[in-house]
């Protein structure tokens, strides 16, 4: 049978009403747990995996795919509506998504996230089916030096996208880098800045920081205006659905997000966050109205959400073709395979094509099911924002801490939430951007580790960083991205750029 026949067969199997019901249950359960901040798709699947134990293989596989996609989607809903990222890959979504929600455009934001995720999931899953063997060859070329170059590119483009006041942006970024130092250094096992507190040895959890800065910091900020604040949240302004203009502005970011997210997800050390960050930076640069960024630009939701889903499909490339679980999510998918007594590996496509295609078909079905379930719910979700402020923010805080408690009910973790929440509040009051702190925490350790790995392998020879065409090329691109805007700015053409980026948090 050809690739295509297997896919059709898998889809046919999945059309059974019972199977569809399993998919629905899986998606619903996955969304319910996945919305909790700090509990990403990997944990969601780990927690709910036992639910699938009693089912037959087909049902179990589809439920599994449903939980997985539901868990991924849940994170973006809370990012957009409550400014509370459910997982690290949906942090970027909160930047523009929540601004849209506050301006009464929560409906279109949720819709572009859902449809963008669907489109990206669809394209990426098909790419997985047909291109996986080629992409994986490319991904293996990436070693530590290439990853280091990629991190530098991400740093430069992302910082450029966040900066109005260079000083304030850099300050935020360095605070993030400082936080990234906390914990055990992976390459030597030495503890840094943990002062003998065992809970600090694993460092600052990205979602803890993001939830604290975004959700708690904002609740405090809103409270500090007391009753005099006039910014009533308008739940719906204009259409709940995407307008023609929204569609026109969304489809290109969806495709670009997919194109960025999929290959980076396929790289063994890529990860979903980098894809979303690069996509956000790209959309901001390419947008016709970059001044809208920071105030609710739909492109800034559409691109990163597509990238996030595409990179999730991307992590399946090394898993299915090489048997490499390259992310927590992929590791959890491995556990799903083990239920059937199978070890994913280089030969999986050859030895058990039914299972692989069954999984791919299940992912497609779950993807559709998610869209079917969520589009009608959007009208209900945006109603959340009509809840009077005292109840809404009390609910957000209850919910924001719930994820942390569910994952690790440690007082130290809650104390971190409180500390970073107050820090986020102070930063808002004084106009420091929030996002670069999170970027520093995510990219800092990755860049550091890849640099030191590259140097270790080359026995301390720094020229190794530019010794391959790919590494040198990416570093050159990063250097250009840093230098060109400076030249433009010097020529006075950057004025517009810098004015536009003002006041975003």
């Amino acid at each position, binding site marked *: 049978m050809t690739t295509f026949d297997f896919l059709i067969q898998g889809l046919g199997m999945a059309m059974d009403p019972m199977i569809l019901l399993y998919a629905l249950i899986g998606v619903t359960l996955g969304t319910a747990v996945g919305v909790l901040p700090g509990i990403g798709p990997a944990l969601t699947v780990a927690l709910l995996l036992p639910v699938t134990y009693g089912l037959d293989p087909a049902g179990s596989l589809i439920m599994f795919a449903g939980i997985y996609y539901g868990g991924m989607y849940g994170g973006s809903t809370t990012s957009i509506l409550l400014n509370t990222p459910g997982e690290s890959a949906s942090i970027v979504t909160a930047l523009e998504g929540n601004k849209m929600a506050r301006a009464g455009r929560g409906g279109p934001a949720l819709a572009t996230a859902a449809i963008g995720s669907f489109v990206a999931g669809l394209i990426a899953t098909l790419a997985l089916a047909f291109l996986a063997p080629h992409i994986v060859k490319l991904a293996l070329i990436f070693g530590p030096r290439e990853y280091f170059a990629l991190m530098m590119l991400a740093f430069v483009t992302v910082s450029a996208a966040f900066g109005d006041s260079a000083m304030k942006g850099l300050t935020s970024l360095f605070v993030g880098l400082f936080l990234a130092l906390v914990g055990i250094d992976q390459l030597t096992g030495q503890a840094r800045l943990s002062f003998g507190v065992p809970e600090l040895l694993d460092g600052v959890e990205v979602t803890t920081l993001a939830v604290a800065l975004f959700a708690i910091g904002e609740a405090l900020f809103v409270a500090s205006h*007391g009753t005099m604040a006039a910014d009533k949240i308008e739940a719906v302004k204009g259409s709940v659905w995407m307008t023609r203009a929204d569609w026109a502005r969304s489809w290109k970011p969806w495709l670009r997000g997919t194109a960025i997210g999929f290959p980076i997800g396929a790289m063994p050390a890529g990860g979903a966050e980098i894809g979303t960050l690069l996509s956000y930076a790209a959309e901001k640069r390419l947008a016709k109205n970059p001044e809208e960024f920071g105030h609710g630009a739909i492109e800034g939701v559409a691109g990163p959400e597509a990238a996030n889903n595409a990179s999730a499909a991307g992590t399946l490339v090394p898993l299915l073709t090489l048997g490499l679980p390259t992310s927590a999510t992929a590791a959890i998918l491995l556990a799903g395979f083990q239920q059937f007594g199978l070890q994913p590996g280089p030969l999986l496509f050859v030895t058990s094509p039914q299972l692989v295609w069954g999984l791919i078909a299940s992912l497609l079905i779950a993807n559709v099911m998610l869209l079917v379930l969520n589009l009608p719910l959007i009208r209900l979700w945006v109603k959340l924002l009509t809840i009077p402020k005292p109840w809404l923010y009390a609910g957000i805080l209850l919910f924001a801490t719930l994820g942390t408690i569910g994952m690790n009910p440690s007082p130290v973790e809650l104390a971190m939430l409180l500390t970073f929440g107050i820090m986020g509040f102070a930063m808002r009051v004084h106009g420091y951007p929030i996002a670069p702190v999170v970027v520093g925490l995510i990219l800092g350790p990755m860049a550091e580790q890849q640099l030191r790995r590259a140097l270790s392998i080359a026995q301390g020879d720094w020229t190794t960083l530019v010794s391959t065409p790919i590494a040198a090329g990416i570093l050159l691109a990063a250097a250009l991205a840093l230098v060109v805007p400076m030249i433009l700015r010097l020529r006075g053409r950057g004025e517009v750029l810098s004015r536009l980026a003002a006041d975003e948090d």
Partner: protein
Amino acid sequence: MIHDLRGPQGRPQRAAFIVAGLLAALGGLALWQGFALPDKGGYAGMGSGGLPKFVGAGLLALAAGHVWTGLRAQGPLPPRIQPAPVLWIVAGLLAQLLLLKPLGFTIASGLLFALTAAGLGRSLRITLPVGLALAFAIYAVFDQLLQLHLPAGWIETLVFGG
């Protein structure tokens, strides 16, 4: 929105100096850590002290930058904020932190909810029962139904057993 609260005023920026102080403290800490770690860079030539030194130097430079702007610029007036509601919420978070283990999820998180809503202008007499009921419902759904392990206190053990 932030700009509504701050008008341009010709006074030295106290905030800039405070920020500078904090950055200098963090920078100093990072530098100290960078130099205090025994170097195990091995073949890389750069050990776990490298990044702390870099970050520390960067933070100190930024602290200097803040001092410079603080002296020079016409700083905005410090924003007017109402401390009372902020303190209510911080109290709620603290209460949750301290009571979670001894009294369980329902009471601790119910209190967080109640104090937050109270800080934003509702009466505690209403928010407390609402918060407890909501937290209990969340416990029931997530712990009992979805197998997420949440800390149990006497309420939870009374209702659902050990």
